[in-house]
Each structure stands twice: as structure tokens, then as C-alpha cells.
């Protein structure tokens, strides 16, 4: 019989995987991985603010992520710097401010490791409610705006000319990413959040025949990865957040080996037998 906390962890992880997979497809297609990293750095500032003002952590992380996203949109228009430089500036400013703010709060004892690497075994029923509630919201919005989001991803100009409102789609995507970062922070931690977005999509890509197919596959792969990581961490007694990401890497490496390589190994062994 599995322990309650372990089952809760699996339910929470599944909830995150279900939304992170489909949304992660957009992160991969639109090359937003670094944007995801920036938001996760900002998440630490959110944690600091939550402790400072004694508000809900998820809400604080979400608000800071939204703030950073909007700051990025504004800076892209005003400042003559490339997006990746701007993202670097924003990420490290947020991270540094967060750390400085935490150091001022001498009365708070923070388990920094818990925030950096997640604490999936400590999820409460309330956390699960937030994850599944927030996740359902993200999925509904994603399904409703799927068409315009996808059109804007393929080509902004076609989308604009043919009446799909791509700017609106971009803002929706940023908001959804902020929600996913906020709800998945507890599972894998600030440092590894982006991996929940990128790994399942990257793995699904190899088997997908269409964009919608890839989104569904990514969700399934995400769940497999969470289960693999959790049972691995149980078996080898390793930290669960990093274990999930290790499981994802292993999964990715296995699927990244092209089928032809297997063929080659087979062939070369046959040749060896011949000689």
C-alpha cells in the first residue's frame, strides 16, 4: 500500500503534467524556453513577496510572472536590445531582488532548497485543489484560443491579415505560462519548472503527426515522466523534483536515438559475426 503523501504527490504531478505538456508545445514551437526560465527566476521574487506580505505563494508568484511578462512586452517596444538580453536582465533582476528581500526578513526561516527544487511530497489537498483548478482553467483557455494561438505561431502576418488578432493571442499565452509556473513551482521547484514545459513537448515531437496530436502526446508523456520520476525517487530514495527531471532526460535520450542507429548496431554485430 502506498502512503497518502505519495498518492497526493502523484495526483499533483499528473495535474501539472496535463497542462504543462500542451502549453510546452507552444514554448518549443515559439522558442520561449528562455522566457520560461525568466518567469521561474521571477517566481523566487514572488515567494519573497508572499512571505513579506503574508499572502498566498501561488498568487504572488503568478502576479510577479504577469508583471515580468508585461515588463518584457513594454521593454521590447521601447529599448533597443534583443529579447534574450532583455530576458536576462529581467530574470536576474527579479532573482537578485528576491534574494535580497529574503535576507532582510530575518524573522522568516525559509527552506530555500524547497523552493529551488520543489517539495512534491509535501503537497496538501489544498495544493492539489489549486493545481487542478488552475490547470483546468489553463486547459479551457488553451482550447478556446487554440486556433488563433496556433495561427499566430505559424505566421503572425497571415494571422493578422486574416483577422486572428495575434497580439491578443501572445498576451493569452504569457498569462497561461504565468499560471502554469505558479502552480507547478511546488512540484519541481523554481530551477526545474521549465523542464516540465520543454521535456514532454520535445519528446512528443518525435512521434507527433500534427500540432494537436503533439499537444495530447506531450500531456501523456508528462504523466509518464512524473510517474517514472516518483517511483524512481521512492526506489532509490532520491529527491523527487530532480528525479522527475532525470526521468524526463532519460526518456528524451532514449527517444532521441534515431531508429536507424538501432539498425546500425544490429548490422554491425551481424558483420562481426560474419568475420
Amino acid at each position, binding site marked *: 500500500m502506498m502512503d497518502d503523501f505519495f498518492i497526493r504527490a502523484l495526483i499533483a504531478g499528473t495535474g501539472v503534467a496535463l497542462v504543462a505538456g500542451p502549453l510546452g508545445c507552444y514554448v518549443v514551437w515559439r522558442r520561449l524556453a528562455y522566457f520560461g526560465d525568466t518567469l521561474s527566476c521571477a517566481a523566487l521574487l514572488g515567494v519573497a513577496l508572499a512571505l513579506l506580505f503574508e499572502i498566498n505563494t501561488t498568487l504572488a508568484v503568478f502576479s510577479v510572472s504577469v508583471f515580468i511578462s508585461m515588463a518584457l512586452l513594454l521593454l521590447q517596444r521601447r529599448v533597443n536590445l534583443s529579447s534574450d538580453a532583455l530576458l536576462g536582465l529581467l530574470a536576474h533582476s527579479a532573482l537578485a531582488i528576491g534574494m535580497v528581500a529574503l535576507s532582510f526578513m530575518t524573522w522568516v526561516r525559509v527552506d530555500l532548497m524547497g523552493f529551488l527544487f520543489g517539495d512534491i511530497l509535501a503537497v496538501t489537498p489544498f495544493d492539489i485543489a489549486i493545481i487542478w483548478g488552475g490547470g483546468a482553467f489553463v486547459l479551457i483557455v488553451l482550447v478556446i484560443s487554440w486556433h488563433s494561438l496556433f495561427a499566430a505561431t*505559424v505566421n503572425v502576418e497571415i494571422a493578422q491579415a486574416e483577422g486572428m488578432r495575434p497580439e491578443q493571442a501572445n498576451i493569452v499565452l504569457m498569462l497561461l505560462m504565468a499560471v502554469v509556473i505558479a502552480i507547478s513551482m511546488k512540484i519541481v521547484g523554481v530551477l526545474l519548472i521549465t523542464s516540465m514545459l520543454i521535456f514532454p513537448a*520535445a519528446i512528443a515531437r518525435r512521434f507527433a503527426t500534427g500540432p494537436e496530436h503533439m499537444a495530447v502526446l506531450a500531456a501523456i508523456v508528462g504523466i509518464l515522466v512524473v510517474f517514472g520520476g516518483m517511483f524512481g525517487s521512492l526506489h532509490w530514495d532520491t529527491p523527487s523534483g530532480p528525479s522527475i527531471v532525470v526521468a524526463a532526460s532519460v526518456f528524451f535520450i532514449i527517444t532521441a536515438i534515431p531508429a536507424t542507429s538501432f539498425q546500425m548496431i544490429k548490422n554491425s554485430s551481424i558483420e562481426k559475426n560474419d568475420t
Partner: protein
Amino acid sequence: MIQNNSSLITLKNAGLFRSGRWLVRGVNLTVNSGEILTLIGPNGSGKSTTAKMAIGVSKPDEGTAHKRQGLKISYLPQRIFIDWTLPIKVNRFMNLTGQVRRKEADEALSLTGAIHLAKSDVRTLSGGEFQRVLMARAIARKPELIVLDEPVQGVDFNGEIEIYELIRNIRDELKCGVLLISHDLHVVMAATDRVICLNGHVCCYGTPMSVANSKEYKVLFGARAVSGLALYQHRHDHEHLTDGTVQSKDGTIDDDCSSDHGNQPHIYKHSFEYNRTDNHDG
């Protein structure tokens, strides 16, 4: 130009300013239903910019752009980059900005000679194949206006003629307006109703058919005129230099090009009965 109920898009004295210079300025144009308007001009003359302003992709910094309410546009941009990580088959691509019935999608693909590609992955198509798919997508939407930015790129010569004929047929069938962009100063298709020549501003406009029917034209291009292609020769008598000044053919440099048009009335005032090659040496 006369604005009436059939006008789909209108630009009035429109200009776009980017990174310290005007990409294009003072453009007036109207596209009506059932009419093909071609924009020609050398590289960097503002053809794509003008088209983008006309259909609302870019907002003009000067002048106005007007689009008929609820106008259904199909747009073929000059370049499309599809990320390698994005798996998308031609069938799905046909429904990119709106649901198209399978039968209509297949008909459009057959028209452009791309039906055999329906199940192919878009990323594996060659330039010419992709162009045909883009064209099919534009047709299948049954638009009121098609905007094509250099639609014959990567298409071989026979395919080029086919595509130009196709554009004409689509216009006849759908009764839609067509805004066509070509960088080729010499080849403009016969079905073009009007041609606007851009070079950072409107240099001239007129009907190529009157040009094609003229004696000089037949003497010059008799053999090709039969093939369904009209040739519209065009020579610029001045060049716009990077610093914004204008160099005439005789080498003199001026602040703007108005003086180059010599003693002729300014070129916007040319009438539709424009029936000579555009060689306004003044």
C-alpha cells in the same frame, strides 16, 4: 482614384516610418472587387510594406488605411518560416485561420497542382511546392481579397505562367480583388488591370493592357504576348540614394524626385488611358 462601394481596401497618402527613414511614403491606392492591381518596383522600394499597410498588418505612420468592414482576406507573405519542431501536414495547414471544408481544400489543391502533397508534412516541401500549397490555402478560403507577395518565388518558368493564369482564373471565378506584388519590372501578367510602380513612393500607374496592345509593345514582345504574359517594360530615370537624395540618370543629385518628372504633370495625375511605356525622361 475613385472610391466607390466596390472598393475593398484604400490607402490615402500612406507612409511607414521605421528606424529613422521612410520605407514608403505618399501612397494612394484602391483595390476594387474583381480587379487585379499589381505593385512593381525594385528591391526595397516598399512593395511589401505598402501591401501590409493596405491590409492592416502594419499601421501607417502618415496618411490613412481603410479596409471594408469584415473583409475576408487571404494573404500570402513573401517568406514563411515554420519552426522545425512544429509538425503540420498540408491538410491541417489548409485550415490555419479558419475551417475549410475538405472538398473545397482538395479542389483548391488540385487547382494549384498540389493535391498529391495533401498528406505531406509542410516542412518537407520544396520552395515551389510550398508556394502552391500557400496558393491553394488562399483560394480555399474563398476570400474577397487575395494579397500575394511575390507568388512565383521558387517556381520554375512553366509553373510561373500557370500560377499567373491561375490568379486570373480565381479572380474570374470568385470575383475577388487581387493585390499582387512582383519585383520583376519586366514581367507583369496580362490580366493585371492596373499597375502601380513604387520606388519609395508611387512613381507611376496605369493599365498594362493598353501597353500590351500598343504597336511598340508588339514589335518588342510579339512572341511572348501570345503566351498569356504581358510584358511591361519599365525604366527608372532616377535612383533614391541611401541618404534620401535622388540621383537622376544624368548624374545630378536632388533633394526629391519631383523635378525628375520634368515638365509632365505629377505622376499621380496620370489617367487610366495610360498607354505608353513608362519612360518619363521628361
